[in-house]
């Protein structure tokens, strides 16, 4: 096999010391959560959007699903991993275009707050369950 230009310097698979900082952890989180989200999200989309369909979904349907603890845990995992993966992805995209140190900091704080608040809202709903319509 011919050595590719990208790896010829030290041979393929060489190890590089990587710093143990926030960005490394964030990168690893994106990779591992990404792999996890493939079954988690695809199964959710397959069941709810493709097989059940939005015309069959209403309050009773959600109540029936959430009567099973396992589905609440599943939805909790979906909420935690999808939204964290997505918000960190947005942060990565923004950091490609936003140059100013102060603007970046402001955006990071804004994203962190939005992530915490929206995750909390979703978590309260999953724990609280379906309410009675007035």
């Amino acid at each position, binding site marked *: 096999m011919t050595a590719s230009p990208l790896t010829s310097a030290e041979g393929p698979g060489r190890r590089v010391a990587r710093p143990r900082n926030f960005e490394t952890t964030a990168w690893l989180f994106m990779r591992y959560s990404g792999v996890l989200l493939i079954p988690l999200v695809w199964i959710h989309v397959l069941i709810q959007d493709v097989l059940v369909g939005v015309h069959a979904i209403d309050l009773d349907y959600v*109540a029936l699903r959430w009567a099973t603890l396992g589905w609440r845990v599943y939805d909790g995992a979906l909420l935690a991993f*999808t939204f964290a993966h997505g918000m960190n992805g947005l942060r990565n995209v923004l950091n490609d275009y936003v*140059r100013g140190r102060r603007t970046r900091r402001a955006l990071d704080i804004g994203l962190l707050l939005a992530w915490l608040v929206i995750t909390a809202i979703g978590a309260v709903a999953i724990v609280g369950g379906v309410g009675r319509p007035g």
Partner: protein
Amino acid sequence: MASLRIPLEGSLYYRGREGQWAYWLHRLTGLGTLLFLTIHILDTSTVYFFPDLYQHAIAIYRATPFMLGEIALVFAVIYHGVNGLRIALFDLLPSWWEADRQRLSFWWVVGLSVLLWLPAAFLMGRSLVVHNFLGG
């Protein structure tokens, strides 16, 4: 806005071909999915906070433009996952880092994504026609 103009303008002239297309599609599908996800978390939360509003939200999701958007969303979710796996796979196998192989891998991702999406799109499209046009 100079900071935005340079990368956006540069991407028009930079001829990265397949690698660049894969990158832009990954960003686009990721951002699109995040937009939907944010709305989706908030509207589903109304089952607890404002149950009456949930009926309202679901009625919007059943409208034809939203169901078409949902079919597009499913493609975005499939492509983003398949392309993400491709990136992870290439990171694990440095011996694959050749331009030809990378270029070809993009078409594998597109082909596999479309193949996985077609049956889903058919079922969702059929549901759309049955419920919104045939009164089923």
